[in-house]
Every structure is written in structure tokens, then in C-alpha cells.
């Protein structure tokens, strides 16, 4: 019996030892070691080109997702109005009542301060880690150029939005850098120079043609040329855009796609007009543009789209007649009571208007016939505010409605830069630098010729050419989220956005004739304060967390 008792006590002590109260603390710690399987470490990420590429894939994914915006950026401009009242363009932008505390770009548009700096850190981390890695020089050269392009892209979004911003080129670390993690703002010019210099340096490291969706030489030059234009460095802009045209354009790598209307459809994703763009795979990583932004009601009264983009009468009036004359020209043949006949093809390819066909239905925005799409002057549903919907960039060959807005079934590219813009950028820069020389005509006429418009009348003054280029640009690039920045850099935002925008009231008169009358519309009452709104306010949280930052004037 005693032996058994001893055994029991002894055994209990052994259990105690076994279960962890051993004298060696380190070994006790080790018994709790677990290597998590759901994450990777530095050691595994930066030693393998394939894994480092996966990090880069994430950065590409952060680029603006323009086919998934329910309130696209043109709604901030004079091109369109959102058909429903709650998004940013209606609550904040329309009357510019945003403040440093309230401007909520993170709800959709790609201009958010913090989000862009998150992306810039990703690029800086990639650059630092890959540079220090033992990966091949060939890999480093190719991928570092891509990542520097992406960094420049994120910086240019910040720079256009806020002016000069802190230029940070390495991953910040509070542990090793201490207080030097706080950066003051660089100037507008310094930020521009940084973007321009980086892009110039890496352009030749990038491939002329790369995997669709990735940065190429053309992308770097297009971004550079655009930033130069934005900075009013017209000579630089002319040179850079000319370089694209000469080295890559005219069918070498890029050319205008034959058909403007279907350029933006998924079947033509593989065109040679796109220079830098985001790709989509329906349902897996697809777009919702049609469900968000196209014509609201279709056959049977079903609401197949939220009607997020309603083109304004101001934009519609900028489409020329098919004879190439603006409607304001008495010779154009424009009849305000037959406004939709003999307009240029881009009008029919970009705008859904009263009586045009969309998806499975003829869309009637006229009043008094009980149409669900009747112009919504009382702002009570998602039907058009203006009497128009967009057609451009919207695909009506897919199932619209919830399948698109829940299922992201869109598959067409979203273009950041395409060759037509390079031609227009060149025309503008060259016109500003040396005036309307032949190369200016050549560039803009190419864009017009593609849509069967006659060449511009020779002998235009610089001013007249400027007006023509600006109208051409507005129409050609409508709904590609470019218009706001054009209004800003042309310094006309306080004019064009300080007015009441219009829609079209269509009523049925005696004998069934339609009567067209421009009307002021809900959401069309625009404000813009020239003393401050040319730049967005830096978020209050950024100022609160970094005492070195200064706010933009007026906020």
C-alpha cells in the first residue's frame, strides 16, 4: 500500500513537471509556440520574385476603380448630375459645403489623402525591400520602374487635389526615424518636379508593350505629359506628348480605335488605343457601371439602374452637328425644337435622350405620358434629373439590374489614358506654346476624323483653337472623369461651376408635337468659391496628426 501511495504522489509530481511548471522558463515559453499559417513574413516575401509580384498585384488593385463608382467624378463637374440626392456630388460638391472635417473622399473617389499615402507606402516598401533584396537586377529594373510609375500616379492624384504635398520616398518607421516621420508639405512645383523627374527616369525602363493592365513606357509618358499640362508647363507637355505620338503613336503601338461607341465595350478590351487602364473580370472582379449609372427604368418599369449620371443640357449643347459646326453657329442647322437630329455621332454614342433605345426599351423622359423615366423635377425617385442618361462606357448587352450592381457583371476596361487624350493633350500644349500650327490641326483632326467630323477650319486664331480644343476635349473625354481637372487647370471652374445647370423639359403639345424647353433641375444649383475651391481641403485628421502640415487657403 505504501508503495502505491508513493507512486501516486510521485506520479502527481511528474504530472506537474510534465504540464509545464518546469524550472526552465524559456522552454515553457516555447511550448506555446505557434506559427500562424494565414500570413507571410519578410523572409518569404522578398526573397522570391513570384511572391514580390503578388505584393505588386495588390498595388495595382489600388488604382482608381472607375467602373464601380455610383457617383462618378464627372458629377462634380458641369457634365452631369447624380440622379439621386445622397452621394457626395449632391451633398458636398454641388454647393461646395465640404470642410476639412467633412470631405469624405474615402467613400468612393480616389483623392483621399490617407488612402493615397497608404498606397504610397506600399510602393515605398516595395522599392526599399526589393532594392535591398537579392532578386535579379533584371527583375529589379523592370518592377522598380513599374512601382515608381504607380507611386507617381498616386502622387499626381494628391497633387492635383491638394497642391503641394509631403514627398515621402521611403517607408516611414517611428522606431528608426523618430520625429523625422513628420514631413511638411512640399510646394506645388516641388511635387510636380518629383513626379516629372521620376517618370522621366523610369520611362525607358518600362516595356513598350506589357501585360494588359500593367504600366508601360507609354503609360509613364502619358502621365508625365498630363501632369506637365496640368502644371501649365506647356512646352514640356508638348514635347512629352509629341514623344508618344512619334515613338509609339500612329499605329506603331497606339492608334485610334476605329469605332468610338464600342471602344468602351468589353469585346474591344484588346484595342490599341488604351495606354493605361484597369481591367475587369465579370463577377470575380467586375464592374457595376451600368447598374449604377445608366438609364434608370427599362421595360416593364423595372429599375435596372440607379441612374447615377444624368448628362446636363450644357454638355449636350457642346456636341456639334454632324456637319462639324457647333449648335451656336447659325450655319449649323440646329433646331432647338428638333434638338437630336443631325448631331455628331459621339452624341448618339454617349447620350440616351428622349426616344432613344437602351437595353430593351425606348426611353421616354418626356412629361405627361406616365413614363417611369419622366424627368424627375421633384427629385422623388432615381429617374433622370435632366432628361438624359449616359450611354458611353455602358454596356447594354449584359443583364442589368441587381445582377450588375450586386454581381459586378461588367467586364469593360476603365481607361486612365488613351491615345485620343494624348492627341488632345498635344494639340492643347502645342497651341499654348507656339499657337495653332499644322501639328495642332493634325492631332485634333485625327480625333474628329474617327467620329466622321470634318477637319477644323484652317486659320483659327490661338484663342479660337483653344475654344475648339476645349470643346473637343469635353465631348471626346466626357464621362471619363477628366472634366473636373480640366475646369480646374483652365481656371474656369468658378465660372462653369457657379451657375444653375439645366436639363430638358419635353412636353407633348397639341397635335402630338414635342416642345423642348431647358429647365433648371434639382441638384443643378452649383457653387464654386474661386478663393479656395481650386484646391480641396486637407483632412482635419491629417492636420491633427502632423503639426508640420498647413491647410490650404480658405479652409
Amino acid at each position, binding site marked *: 500500500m505504501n508503495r502505491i*501511495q508513493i507512486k501516486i504522489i510521485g506520479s502527481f509530481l511528474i504530472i506537474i513537471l*510534465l504540464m509545464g511548471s518546469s524550472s526552465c522558463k524559456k522552454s515553457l*515559453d516555447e511550448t506555446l509556440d*505557434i506559427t500562424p499559417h*494565414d500570413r507571410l513574413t519578410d523572409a518569404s516575401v522578398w526573397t522570391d520574385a513570384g511572391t514580390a509580384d503578388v505584393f505588386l*498585384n495588390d498595388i495595382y488593385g489600388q488604382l482608381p476603380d472607375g467602373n464601380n463608382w455610383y457617383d462618378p467624378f464627372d458629377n462634380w463637374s458641369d457634365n452631369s448630375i447624380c440622379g439621386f*440626392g445622397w452621394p457626395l456630388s449632391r451633398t458636398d460638391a454641388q454647393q461646395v459645403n465640404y470642410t476639412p472635417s467633412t470631405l469624405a473622399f474615402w467613400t468612393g473617389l480616389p483623392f483621399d489623402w490617407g488612402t493615397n499615402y497608404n498606397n504610397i507606402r506600399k510602393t515605398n516598401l516595395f522599392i526599399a525591400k526589393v532594392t535591398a533584396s537579392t532578386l535579379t537586377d533584371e527583375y529589379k529594373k523592370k518592377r522598380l520602374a513599374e512601382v515608381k510609375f504607380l507611386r507617381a500616379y498616386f502622387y499626381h492624384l494628391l497633387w492635383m487635389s491638394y497642391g503641394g504635398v509631403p514627398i515621402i520616398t521611403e517607408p516611414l518607421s517611428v522606431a528608426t526615424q523618430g520625429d523625422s516621420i513628420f514631413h511638411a508639405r512640399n510646394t506645388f512645383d516641388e511635387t510636380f518636379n518629383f513626379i516629372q523627374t521620376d517618370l522621366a527616369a523610369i520611362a525607358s525602363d518600362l516595356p513598350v508593350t506589357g501585360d494588359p493592365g500593367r504600366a508601360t513606357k507609354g503609360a509613364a509618358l502619358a502621365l508625365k505629359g498630363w501632369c506637365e499640362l496640368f502644371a501649365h508647363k506647356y512646352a514640356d507637355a508638348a514635347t512629352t506628348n509629341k514623344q508618344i505620338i512619334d515613338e509609339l503613336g500612329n499605329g506603331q503601338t497606339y492608334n485610334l480605335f476605329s469605332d468610338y461607341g464600342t471602344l468602351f465595350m468589353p469585346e474591344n478590351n484588346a484595342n490599341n488605343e488604351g495606354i493605361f487602364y484597369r*481591367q475587369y473580370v465579370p463577377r470575380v472582379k467586375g464592374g457595376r457601371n451600368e447598374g449604377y449609372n445608366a438609364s434608370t427604368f427599362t421595360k416593364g418599369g423595372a*429599375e435596372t439602374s*440607379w441612374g447615377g449620371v444624368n448628362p446636363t443640357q450644357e454638355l449636350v449643347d457642346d456636341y456639334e452637328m454632324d456637319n462639324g459646326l457647333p449648335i451656336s453657329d447659325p450655319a449649323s442647322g440646329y433646331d432647338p425644337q428638333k434638338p437630336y437630329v443631325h448631331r455628331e455621332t459621339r452624341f448618339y454614342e454617349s447620350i440616351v435622350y428622349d426616344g432613344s433605345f437602351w437595353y430593351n426599351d425606348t426611353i421616354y423622359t418626356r412629361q405627361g405620358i406616365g413614363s417611369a423615366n419622366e424627368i424627375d423635377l421633384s427629385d422623388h425617385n432615381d429617374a433622370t434629373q435632366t432628361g438624359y442618361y449616359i450611354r458611353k462606357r455602358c454596356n447594354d448587352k449584359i443583364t442589368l439590374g441587381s445582377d450588375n450592381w450586386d454581381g459586378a457583371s461588367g467586364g469593360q476596361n476603365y481607361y486612365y489614358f488613351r491615345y485620343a487624350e494624348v492627341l488632345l493633350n498635344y494639340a492643347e500644349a502645342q497651341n499654348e506654346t507656339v499657337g495653332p500650327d499644322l501639328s495642332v490641326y493634325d492631332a485634333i483632326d485625327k480625333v474628329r476624323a474617327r467620329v466622321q467630323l470634318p477637319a477644323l477650319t484652317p486659320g483659327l486664331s490661338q484663342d479660337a483653337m483653344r475654344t475648339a480644343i476645349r470643346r473637343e476635349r469635353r465631348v471626346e473625354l466626357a464621362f471619363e472623369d477628366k472634366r473636373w481637372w480640366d475646369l480646374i487647370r483652365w481656371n474656369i471652374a468658378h465660372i462653369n461651376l457657379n451657375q444653375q445647370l439645366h436639363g430638358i423639359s419635353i412636353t407633348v403639345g397639341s397635335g402630338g408635337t414635342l416642345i423642348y424647353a431647358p429647365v433648371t433641375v434639382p441638384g443643378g444649383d452649383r457653387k464654386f468659391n474661386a478663393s479656395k475651391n481650386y484646391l480641396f481641403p486637407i483632412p482635419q485628421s491629417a492636420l491633427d496628426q502632423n503639426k508640420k502640415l498647413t491647410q490650404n487657403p480658405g479652409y
Partner: protein
Amino acid sequence: MKKCIAASYVCNVHSLKHLPGIGFKKFIFLLVILFLGVIVSAQNKLHVTGVVTNDNGTPLADCSVTVKGNAAGTKTDSKGMFSMDVPDSKSVLVISYVGYQTLEIPVGKTTSFAIKLTSGNASLADVVVVGYGTQKRTSITAAVATINGDEIASQPVADLSNSLGGRATGIIFTQGSGEPGYDGSNILIRGISTTGNAQPLVIVDGIPRNFSQLDPNSIASISILKDAAAVAPYGMGGANGVILITTKKGKTGAPTLTYNAYVGWQNPTRLTKFVNAYQFATLFNAADDNEGAPHAYSDYALQKYKDHSAPDLYPDHNVLKELITPNTIITNHNLEFSGGAERIKYYAGIGFLSQNGMWGPTKYKRYNLTANIEADATKTTKVNVSLNGRVEDRRFPGVSSGSIFYQAFRTPPNAPLTFSNGLPGSYIGRSAYGNIFGSGYTQTVGYTLLNQISIEQQLPFVKGLSVKALVSYDFNPFNPTDPGNPFAPITTFNRTWLTPILYYNYDSATNSYPQSGNDGPAKPQYSESYYQSQAFTYQAYLNYHNNFGKSEVTGLIVLEARNTKSSVFGAGRVNYSVNVPELNNGSSNSTDISNYGYSAESKQKSAVYRVTYGYAGKYLVEASGRYDGNYYFAPNHRFGFFPAFAAGWRLSEEGFIKNKFPWITNLKIRGSYGESGALAGSPFQYLSSYTLYGNASVLNGTTTQGLYENSEANTNITWERAKKTDVGIESNFWNGLLTVEADYFYEKRTDMLFPPTVTVPLEYGVALAQVNSGAMSNRGFELSVGSTRHFSKDLTVSLKTNFTFARNKLLQVFETDATFKNPNRRKTGRPLGTQFGYKAIGYFTQDDFNPDGTLKAGIPTQAFSTTLHPGDIKYADVSSPGGGKPDGMITPDDIVPIGHPATPEIIYGIIPSVAYKGFDLSLLFQGASSRDFYMSVFAFDNSSSAIIDALDYWTPTHPNAVYPRITTQPTPNNTQTSSWWIRNGAYFRLKTGELGYTLPITVIRSIKIQSARFYLSGQNLLTWSKIKNFDPEISSSTGQYYPQQKVISIGLNVTF
């Protein structure tokens, strides 16, 4: 059903074979040791028997009979008989029974006893379940509240967490939803003491487990461990309080079979009322008037809405009411079988619960099985085996209830919810009706099996010493997607079948109803997922209990190791061409196929101790604690020590009280101080790491994987530390005529985890791991007062009340200067969750404006909307930047505290009960206050409908309205977070009421059963609150959630 249990059990056995090497060896080793123990037989043992009766000589069944100094013992059978072994003739028998005074009888040479108990105080004799053991109520020095299993068994609620509220002090709770299967309460012990995870630890039969879906009938008792002394044995898990659940065990006596059942009818406590079509259209036209826009609705339309003469063109629906079915059924059946012979006791229970939702597709079914065997393998060896299994089967529409309510709140009354022929219509491409009835389904089935075996061996060579080993293997004790949440439903297998939701339109020209589109996917989609978790827990106990003269000493050491593993696997396909939901039947196109999966594990090792010393039952001291290690943190930061001390003084045992004030039955003061910990954040924050994910970007036409940097590592991260102080008094006067128990508590939580985000610029670009940096205090008091009076043998009246107040304060948090330097906005020094906003001071009036519509000089500008109008909300200008004088502008500097946190600071319960002859009536009134709720339910917000309250809007002739002037979309000025929308969330409700009738013994005998009781019971029967159009426990500021339910049920309880 049976098959399911069998299947999971097979799986369990299978898994046991694959226990990790060390664990399994340890397990075998323990078994060997304990087997050795089993063959030890005791010497000197005496066998005693007896019968226990009350004053009247009626045998008392179920009395506890123990040997003093040893918690283990036996219970009397239905004839009041007991029989047990005692160590020797010096042993003292302790006989206790609820409602009677405890008796201590030395054994001596007697082996057969006739014992008479006199009725006395209920709680004095109780044995209370505490961490890793039990203690006598009289000698306990910690703050522990208990709830008896009987109190909750007959309540018509599915989720056990809903049965605790109002029944004991220290439980702060909110039931945020009434959706079957997801209607559990959020339970906090003594409120919130941390910005991190504030949920208490839940222990079921000694092991951390999910408890909310146990069979209420299988619960023996619930202990709420509140102060440091009570939670110290749980170390890093204890700081938020601990809920201990003990399930039923067998009782010695003839086998009894008990059948419990109820059926109840459920309705929402309050169903939000909306405007009708005419009101909606009129309201909208009024908004158009305010905006100078043409009327959206013509007089003709208004007339049609009013007279309902064209229901398909001018509908008038009461959307929410038409979607729900009233009086849905909840039913519960339970069969218990228990009994015991001399050396073996057994308990088995099976339960079935079925709860229907407010609409057909929503159903919850639960099957519970509990089995427990306690056997004396030898005279000194006890073996306990218990199995506790359940199946939780939830079915819902394909669309979540959140989306259903969103859509129901959105759909205006004049939209075609359904047409006159029953076909569903649509609003903004959505079908509120189809979301419920045509969307497919979601089914989640949870399989859980909790197994444990323990062997306890008395060690005869040291008096009062015993060892015990416990091994538990749990299959699905927690949900892998929310492993730290003991209330998260178990969802082992999920399937979701989403179909196109067809909707129709009315074509008045042809008087036909063509299908006009569909909500949901264009083609059906199907997905499945499997969640699995397992936990292995090993405990080795060394227990000591002995008396030396007037001294009583107990000691406890427990070594515990716990490992868990979990995995998740899911797959899905879209674009189904056939209507048969099987994975294989979906599209084979690679972009239509998806799958995912991941796994995780955890490890914990601990040593627990508790030593108590009592002198003459008067002076009580206790020391307890835990040395606890957890895998969460980096090596060298894994182990911590969490000690606590407590002392108590039973004044009622002192001569100067006992002799002079005999009416003081019990008077004890006690106090405790100690430290415990909390795992507030997520594991592995000490590692620099990257996370992989799918569908990052599309490059070269295909989707790619992505990889992103996780937050910057903090290698020093460790647990939160809680220092708890508690002072309490327990008293009992005139043998239970008045009982008062009061506690004051104070806790300081330090090392609270915060990401130090504001210490780096926003340009930093990556989140920082949490650091142990914050501090918070939490203090309050608890009071329970009770009284029981037996007026005659037929009439007993009792009243129990409890009151809990807990208020926390942030002592140190990361704040930006914008809030920290403004005394109005500073979070530090205020309770967590204090609501901030502008102070609304009424509406602008015509007098505030110049003729041109601009604000008059001197009125602070408020630039949320560009133009202001009479009837817009006016805010108070209180400060300039940095907290100074008013500066004539309403800016964020003018933000002030506008309300209490949404979690109530005060919770109380009032429980009167009366028993008269065969009738018993028991009510539970429960209330909460010091709670504010922010309501932002605006008419036409994002094209939504309008609740009935929205009709009370500002006009020049109705200036004292609840809502500002009406607009087609609420204006930014009027939707600013402000005091205007704060509602007092206090409420008082009759939470439970039960009226029972027990058949008289004469009737019972004639039908040959032991007892039978019928009862009428109810839940959330009456509610009083300032919030009128919603249940006051509303959990969504938009009101869009599945509301709490009122239940009325009838039940039956028969023992054969």
C-alpha cells in the same frame, strides 16, 4: 437527427486517436495514474444511512449530505433517504437543503440517522460553484452571484443568455435582436472596463465553452464571478468577469422521468409604424413645396391613395406589417431521466426546441442531449463522465435580415409591395417581398459535442487530500470565425442558395402583370462552408480540505493545458443552369467557381491555486491566483501571474451579536483585491507579417492574388491588466425575512490595447499594432434586497430585487489635440461610448433671417448646408478652436457631449412571487437606465419610406415639431450628429411572468404520477419607455433590425 449526433461522435472518436503526440501521451499517462488510484482501497471507512424530514415529518428529497471538510457528498432520494461512506467516526455530517437551516451532526458510533431540518434561510446553506471548485455560501469571501437552473428552465426563450438579465446583480445586458438563432443578449459583467473585448469568459462544467444554446432544462446553476477573488483562478481570461454554468447531475434515488414542454406565440414587442400612401405622398409634396419643386403627386394620385380604388396603380401597403406573420410558434420539449443507486448516479436529458421566425422561411431548431454518469469506482474514487451534444439548425431567406429590414424600411407604402393578385412588385430594383419569399435560402447547422471524463481519488494517507484529473475533448465548442466570443453561434455547415428574385409590374393598358425584372443574381448561386473547431483541455487537481480544531483549511492546485484547433473551408459556384443546389451542379466555367479555407490553433498553459483559511467560521481569508501563459504574445511576454486576496468576517458568529441580536441570522463583511488579465486584441501582433488575399487586381485579363503588409509589429505586446477591489456585505435578518447584499467595486484597467495611430502622421501609410498603453476605471455598486415570508403552510410570499450600477471612465487613451485640448470634446475623463455631437437649441425661425434669406448678423453661421431656412435645426455656438469662447461659427469645435453611452449604466430587477396552495406566480420586472440611444430615422433618406413620427415636422404654424422642415432628402444641416436625435433609452419592462398550478397530491396519486404542474408564461410582456415606435433595446440607429419578441406560452411539467 439521431444520425447527425452519431456522425459527429464518430468524428470525435476519430479525432481522439489523432490527439497531438504529447497531449495523447499525457492523456494515457493520466489514465494510468488514475487507474492506479482506483485500485487503492480505503481503510477505516464507515457506511452510514439516514432519512431527512422537515418539521412535519415529510421526507425531504434532494437534500445535500456531505462530510464536513469535503465538498463531495450525496443527496437524499425521493423518500428522504441517503446512504454514504464517511472516512471515520470523527467525521461530521453536514445536511443542507434550500430553505432550511443547515445541520451538522458528528458521526460517532451511529450509522443510521433520523434527521429533522428546520426551515430557515435559503441562501445560507447553499453550496456555490466557484472557479475550479465549490464553496459554502457562508464561507465565501468573493463576490459571486448565482442563478438557480429552475428559475430559467420554463422561460420561453431559446437563447440562454436572454434568461440571465434582471435575475442577479452584476449582469449588464442588452438584447439587440429577436432573430431566431441570433437573438442572444450581449452580456457584460459589471459593465465595460476596457476599450477592447469586454465579453466575459464563459465556463461550462469547468471548460471554456459556448453556453447560449445549451438546453435550459439541463442547467443546474449559473454563477457570476465578479470580483478579483472570484476571477483570479482564470488569470488572463478573468478580467471581464466569468460566467460559470453547471449542468445537472444525477441524484440518488429511484429513477424519475420528467417531461417539460411549452408552446408559445411570438410577436414583435413593438412593430415600427409607417406612414400610409396618402400620408407619404402628401409629405413628399410638402417637401417639394419647401424646395420650390413641382409636386411629385397630383391631386388625382392623392385621391387614389386615399380611396384605394386602384390598388395596383396606386397601392397603399403597410409594408412591414404585411411582410410579417403574427403569432409565430416557439415550442420546446424536454425529457429528463435521472436517478442513482448507492455507487452510481446518472442524468440524461434530451431537448427539442423549434422557433419560427416572423416570416415563413426563418426557422430555428435545436436538439440537445445531455448525459452524465457519476460513479464511485471504489470507495475513494469517483469517476464522472459527461457528454453534452447539440445540433443547431437555422434557416433563413437567402437575403439577410439586415437587408430585409433595410428594404422594408425603404419601400414606401405607395410602391407595389405585392399586386392584388399576390405577385411581388419592386422598388428601386429591389423586391422587399421577394427578398423574403423568393430569394432562396441560407441554412446553418451547428454540431457540437462536449465530452469530458474526470477521476477523483481521495488520498487516504493524508486526511482531506484528493487528486483529480479531468480530460475534455470538445468538438465545435466555439465558432472559428469569432473564436474569442463565447456567445457566437456554432455554425458548422452552412449552405446558401441564392436565386433570382423575380418581380412583376402592372400594365394597365393590357391589365396584365408581366415579369419586369429580377432582384438578386441573374442565375442561381450556391455556396457551402464548413467551420470546425476542437478543443483539448487537460486539468490535474490537487485538493485539500481539513479542519484543525476551529480552523478550517482548504487548498487547491490545478494545472491546466488547453489547445484548440480550427479550420474553415468554403466553396461556391455561380451561374446555375439547373435548380438543384449541389456544388457539382453549378457552372464549370472557372470564373464561376470559387473556394477558400484557412486554419488556426491556440495554446494555453496555466497553474491555478487557491488557499482558504477560516477560524471558527468567523474569520475567513483566501488567496488565489493563476500563473497563466498564452500563445498570443512573443516569447518572454507569454506568462503572467495574477494573484488575488480576500478576507471576510462573519460578525453574526461573534458572541456580541449572536447573543444580543438573535434576529441577525447572518452578517458578513468581506473584501477582496487582486489582479487579473484580459486578451483584448488579436493574436500574433508581435510578428511583422503580410496577408495574402484573392482577386486583388486584374492583370493580363486574369485576376491575381494580392499581398499586403499587416500593421507594424509590436514585439512587446501583452495582456491587459485589471486591478480589482471589492467590498461587500451580506446579511440576513429574521431567518430570511430580509436579506441584503451590497457590493462596492472599483477596477482599474491598465495596459489597455490601443493602436497609437494619432502619434504618427496620417501619411505614415500603415496601421500600427496595438500597444499596451491605455487606462480606464470602472466603479459602481450592486445591491440586492430580498424577503421571503411563509405566512402559513399554504402561502409563501417573496420579493427579490437587485440593482447594478457601473460607470467607467477613460483615464488614458490616444486622442488628437482637436479633441484632447477641447474640454468639451475630450474623451479622457469620460465614460467610454459617451456620445458627442452638436448641441441643438431648436429651430431657426423667420426672425433669424434677413429678407434676402441670409442669416441675420450676430447669429452664428452654420455651413453644413449652403442655405438655411426657418425650420432647420439651430446649433449652439459654444467654443472656438482649442476650447475658448464662442466664435460666431458652428464648427467641430462646438461639439459637446450629448448623451450617455448606449450601454446602460443601471440595470435592475424586481422579482415578486407568491405561492398559494397549488398556485405559484412569479414576475420579473426589469429595467435599465442611464442609457441614451442615437436615432437617425429620416423620411426619404436615400429614397426611403417614412416612419409615422416623420409626420410631426416643422412648419411655421407647427414650430414645436420633432422633425425639422421636410425636404426630399434630409439636409446635411439637419442630419448632423446632434443632441436633437438623442433619445433616452431607459426602459422598464415585465420581462418574464409565470403563473403555475401544481395538481394536488390526491389527484396526482389517482393518475399514478409524482407531480404535475401547468403554467402560463411570458417574455417581454409589457414595456414602458420613452422610445415609442421601436423596442427600447433597439440596436440600430436607423431602426432597421429584427425586433425583439414578446412571447406568451403555456407549459406543462410532469414527473413520472
